[in-house]
């Protein structure tokens, strides 16, 4: 293949990655923005989503699309409920103190991860995609002075991957509509802007916090359900999404949702492209250093205007 088709393939893989990453990172960003809590256990909520998707598809049986459809609804709900419970039993009692909640969420990370190891085991298990048609993609070449389409060997994607990209966009639009247009979003933005003033106006801030923490975790779980037919469910799978989501949230500006989405697309695409052409470890090292330096020299993020 020429460079062009290769690049298209890398961009498609990157877009799948970006879509999943955007959901995960928006969840993290929402929690940080509204609650000022850095949730180190976010990657474990992602992992729980994938593991629950496996359990649900095993229990439901029938055609793959039925089990997957149920998992798409049930897994985020369960994970969200777990997160709400964690918020009410742990984070609330710490008064959402930034440093103490970090230590507590590190503890939650190990609790969730190790309990999954005990219950689910160390194996990686696949989930069957609901539909998975192979789609060959055309590429163009200039033949006799005119553009002509042809189908290069190896240039293909699957209908499921395109559906993941679509689902990611749909959910992000839903989150945006909720934040910008609904009563619930208005309340969340009020709490984010000034917690004490919101409290003075009678907004039940603690209930909003619990809801935001649950919503953030549910978004991570949803992203994991979407990706699990492509990768696999494993108890250690939360570490990479956590670090990537951190990267995205920091580059996009801590707590800024539009910045987070832009950064997710940027990082998802570049990760897809870089790992096609370069060593993934080197790419990870450079990305990690870049993030740390952004945080030191531009704490508001590359796209943010507000200070964090």
């Amino acid at each position: 293949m020429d460079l062009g088709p290769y690049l298209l393939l890398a961009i498609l893989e990157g877009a799948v990655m970006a879509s999943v990453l955007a959901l995960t990172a928006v969840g993290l960003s929402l929690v940080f923005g509204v609650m000022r809590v850095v949730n180190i256990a976010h990657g474990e909520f992602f992992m729980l989503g994938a593991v629950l998707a496996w359990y649900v598809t095993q229990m439901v049986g029938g055609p793959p699309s039925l089990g997957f459809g149920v998992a798409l609804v049930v897994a985020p709900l369960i994970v969200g409920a777990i997160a709400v419970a964690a918020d009410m039993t742990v984070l609330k009692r710490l008064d959402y103190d930034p440093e103490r909640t970090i230590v507590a969420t590190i503890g939650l990370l190990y609790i969730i991860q190790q309990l999954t190891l005990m219950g689910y085991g160390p194996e990686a298990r696949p989930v069957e995609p609901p539909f998975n048609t192979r789609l060959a993609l055309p590429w163009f070449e200039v033949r006799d002075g005119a553009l002509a389409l042809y189908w290069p060997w190896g240039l293909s994607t699957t209908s499921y991957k395109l559906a993941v990209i679509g689902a990611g966009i749909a959910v992000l639009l839903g989150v945006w509509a909720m934040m910008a247009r609904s009563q619930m979003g208005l309340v969340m933005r009020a709490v984010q802007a000034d917690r004490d003033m919101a409290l003075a106006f009678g907004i039940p801030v603690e209930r909003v916090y619990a809801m935001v923490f649950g919503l953030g975790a549910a978004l991570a779980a949803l992203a994991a359900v979407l990706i699990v037919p492509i990768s696999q469910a494993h108890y250690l799978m939360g570490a990479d999404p956590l670090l990537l989501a951190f990267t995205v949230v920091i580059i996009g500006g801590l707590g800024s949702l539009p910045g987070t989405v832009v950064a997710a697309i940027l990082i998802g695409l570049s990760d897809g492209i870089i790992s096609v052409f370069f060593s993934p470890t080197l790419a990870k090292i450079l990305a990690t250093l870049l993030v740390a330096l952004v945080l030191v020299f531009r704490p508001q993020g590359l796209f943010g205007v507000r200070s964090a």
Partner: protein
Amino acid sequence: MSERARVLALHGGLLVLLLALHFVLPPYHHGNLARIMVLASYAAGYNIVFGYTGLLSLGHALFFAAGMYAMGLSVPHIGTGTALLAGVAAGGIGAILLGLLALRTRGVAFMIVTLMFAQAGYLTILYFGAWTRGDEGFVIARASRMLWGLDLSDAAHRYLAALALFALVLGACLWMVRAPFGRSLIAIRENEPRAAMLGYDTFRLKLAAMAASGAISGAAGAAYALLFGYAGASFASVEYSILPLLWVLLGGAGTVLGPFIGTLFMFYLIDLSSGVTSAYMLIAGIALVLLTLFAPRGLMGTVRARLWRWLP
């Protein structure tokens, strides 16, 4: 007894007790205690930054591993004594470089920057697998583990060497908290703007705290490689940044004895539970949550608040 005499009696008494245990402990616990003393030295280094200066670092595995690899990689070429010093220097210099960048941020950002740099360090060790042997790690030859005529692969020598390191670190920490340097670090922890207003150069003091903490962590890493004859990438992973935090929180942040007490308890807790289940880090997770919820002062911090007000 004067306060000074009490402090010396308590900490000196611990060292004498540890020396006495050398002669009575059965081999298994004797080996464990040697390991605990090295790890407690690492925790004591972490405590300078976290406990006394009030900076939550999640990147100390970088300094521990820097000491470990500087020692392990250089020992075949420059001899054991110099390699040990190279380990201390690597930890200290690494901490100064990271401090110069990370100390420009504060609070949550400081934690993320330290975490990210430590992660980059871990990945770098994996990337240069040809030299570091990555996750698999490498064994340090017995011939390289001779220091001043002592064979450190021998259990008795190893225990005494670990005790010497721990005594050195404990002494340094005791001196530090009573010296003006340590007092000014506590002032920064309690109220940084006020310390700055009183004329303290808080950036420089925090950088010095990082350097001291990194050098001690590097010394512990180098000693670990020297005494137990092994260096591996897992010692640079996030887990080894979180463990000293756990040990210090359990023992009591901002107390000289806390790191040792916390390491001792947590080591045996994890040791016991790993006999029952492979998910032994569950204990660490539960301990972290319970400590932050119910005992943020830790064991020695509670003893200081309730019993011995003079505890340094």
